[in-house]
């Protein structure tokens, strides 16, 4: 196993650099270069254009630029984005990545959760009308022409019913009043942290509750979940208070009493802005979940059907265990392996975003950044965006393989 791991890691590093090299030269092979965009500006003379191009290093041959880029990359320097000129690539990525991660991570988790739950039931109640409806409906959504479906969702929920915002990730009118420390990324980062901490707490609680006896378990579980969710809200309130305190907003609200302070917190505090972002998240996440849950549903179903043939399922049934227990504890948990692998693999592409979703919901994240960078030949930007995706994809593939061998002792690597 150790030899396999070492060999695989070495191969991965090699593949990684091959990937970066390939992308670099592929993007450069497009006709023209970024310097051509200066031709659009009539105020620039030919000499000035040449100077600007030389400043971006575009007067050098491609292999020289590649070597410069690679040596910088090995020193942890990603260069400067051409299209956002003075800004470094890492700065642009740090700005766009949190949005993409929050949207696609939530959507991935939702679609795996609902897909797993639906697939479990589908395999259990095989052959009924439920299966036909769920499969045809699920596959219909899975293969739906995404841009059209996204637009229809916006048309229905945002335009006709008016319950959700039409696009973008913040409400500009609200955010115009945001004071000093609060920016979109400030909130996005803290939302991400909240998500991770909250998720860990929930998972820990569910694992703990599982060991209690069944009668106490059911009530305790839901109480615990509600308490954790409330705790998150309270933490955000306290955090909003601390920020407001540091920024010195209280001059206006404090004299009017605690009620005014509370209302001030809810209208101008960080929690209000976090709620605004979450509000904008609902429609894209719903759309993405609807589009992709069928894949996970069918995967779970197949895996379940294979598990249901095992002898221990027969034993569990013969013991007289309730159907739900056999389904959830004996079958579904063993059927989880391929679903888990798929989940880890899809986590790698969370940073990638999606060009279609981001275009339709005007959500300027990594997918759009990568696409525009590739189209305008902003090579440092495009390769810089792929640096992380590539590393995550390779690691996820390796982790999935190792986890597979770890969870299923029948699989061994020489």
């Amino acid at each position: 196993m150790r030899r396999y791991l070492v060999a695989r890691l070495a191969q991965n590093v090699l593949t990684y650099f091959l990937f970066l090299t390939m992308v670099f030269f592929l993007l450069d092979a497009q006709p023209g270069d970024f310097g051509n965009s200066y031709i659009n500006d009539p105020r620039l003379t030919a000499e000035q254009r040449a100077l600007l191009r030389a400043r971006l290093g575009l007067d050098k041959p491609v292999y020289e630029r590649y070597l410069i880029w690679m040596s910088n990359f090995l020193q942890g320097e990603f260069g400067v984005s051409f299209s956002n000129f003075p800004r470094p690539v890492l700065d642009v990525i740090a700005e766009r990545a949190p949005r993409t991660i929050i949207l696609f991570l939530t959507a991935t988790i939702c679609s795996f959760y609902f897909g797993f739950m639906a697939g479990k039931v589908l395999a259990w109640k095989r052959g009924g009308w439920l299966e036909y409806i769920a499969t045809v409906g699920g596959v219909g959504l899975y293969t739906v022409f995404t841009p059209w479906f996204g637009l229809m969702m916006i048309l229905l929920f945002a335009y006709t019913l008016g319950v959700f915002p039409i696009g973008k990730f913040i409400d500009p009118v609200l955010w115009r009043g945001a004071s000093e420390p609060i920016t979109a990324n400030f909130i996005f980062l803290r939302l991400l942290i909240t998500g991770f901490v909250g998720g860990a707490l929930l998972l820990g609680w569910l694992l703990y509750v599982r060991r209690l006896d069944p009668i106490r378990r059911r009530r305790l579980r839901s109480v615990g979940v509600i308490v954790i969710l409330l705790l998150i809200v309270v933490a955000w309130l306290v955090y909003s208070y601390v920020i407001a305190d540091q920024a010195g907003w209280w001059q206006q609200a404090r004299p009017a009493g605690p009620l005014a302070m509370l209302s001030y917190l809810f209208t101008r505090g960080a929690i209000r802005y976090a709620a605004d972002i979450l509000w904008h998240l609902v429609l894209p996440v719903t759309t993405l979940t609807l589009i992709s849950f069928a894949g996970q549903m069918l995967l779970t179903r197949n895996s379940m059907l294979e598990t249901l043939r095992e002898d221990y399922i027969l034993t569990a049934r013969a013991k007289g265990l309730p159907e739900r227990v056999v389904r959830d504890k004996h079958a579904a948990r063993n059927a989880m392996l391929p679903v888990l692998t798929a989940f880890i693999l899809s986590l790698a592409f969370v940073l990638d975003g999606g060009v279609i979703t981001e275009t339709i919901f005007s959500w300027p994240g990594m997918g759009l950044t990568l696409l525009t960078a590739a189209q305008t030949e902003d090579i440092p930007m495009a390769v810089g965006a792929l640096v992380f995706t590539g590393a995550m994809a390779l690691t996820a593939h390796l982790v999935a393989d190792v986890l597979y061998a770890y969870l299923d002792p029948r699989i061994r690597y020489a």
Partner: protein
Amino acid sequence: MAEKSDIVGGATAGTAAGVVRHTELDLWKIRLQLTWREFKQNVALFAENKIGLLGVAIIVLFALMAVAHPILIATRVWDPNIYDPIVGYDFTQVQQPAPPSAAHLLGTDPLGRDVLSQLMYSAASEFALGVTAALVTVIVATTVGAVAAYYGGILDSILMRLADLIIMTPFVTILIVLSAMFDVKMIHLAIIIGLLSGFGGDAIIIKSQALTIKVRTYIEAARVAGGGDAHIILRHIVPNLLPLSFLYMMFTVTSAIFSEAVLSFFGLINIRMSWGLMIHTTSTAGYLMDLKRWWLVFPASLSITALCAAFYLVGRALDEVVNPRLRKR
């Protein structure tokens, strides 16, 4: 089923290896009979699955549409001047896009062309695209998977890391970059999609299947009987991989049609007419969100969805035929 066909395959392999030479004349007959019987059984299994039949029905419907279009034009039921999907124009309509009428069952598009005619004309090219991409995928994935699994070692590592490389590459972005570099036509798109999916994820799945076949006893038997590497791969491994390959072929058809639709929706590839391009035309004319002119967007979008779903459903049904553990009995 797979177990049984393995035994049959092993038996015929033993015979073919020269144990009983004198029955060689009848061998092909026996083989044909066996294949036919197996085919009938598989069809029966497939037909049990209503969902798969629904998929087949949708595919047949679109195939009929694709076949009917040139006939309608050639027999002058549809006057080419009016009904040509690309250059036709109906001067009798007061305004374009015209709503559905007896002359134009699905109305006309903003450029005065018949929507139904475009829909039917495009069906043929969607099929061509899907089938080409799928064939490339099957050939590439089966070859790579079988070779990587059979030889193992360095060759396996190289091929699998190449597959990793392709999985990492952002699909749509690369297609868009390629379309900027070359004049990408439908046929190129089909080959690119086929290569990318055949060398990427599909190759990895096929390889893991080939690994389980490689350790079967009939492979050893064939080797003991003196079969060379090429013989074992081509006659013993590949035939057992083909069912799985055909399954993934169906999924490739879906992804090929979908990718084409997305690329033409963004107006990025050079094709004369397709469902995606119909939506692109509508979008550039500003009717994309206009529910009153539903005939501009809905037929094309629903066609893309329906045909993709149909191939996917057929693939699912084939999965149950190929994988005995998924069957009801």
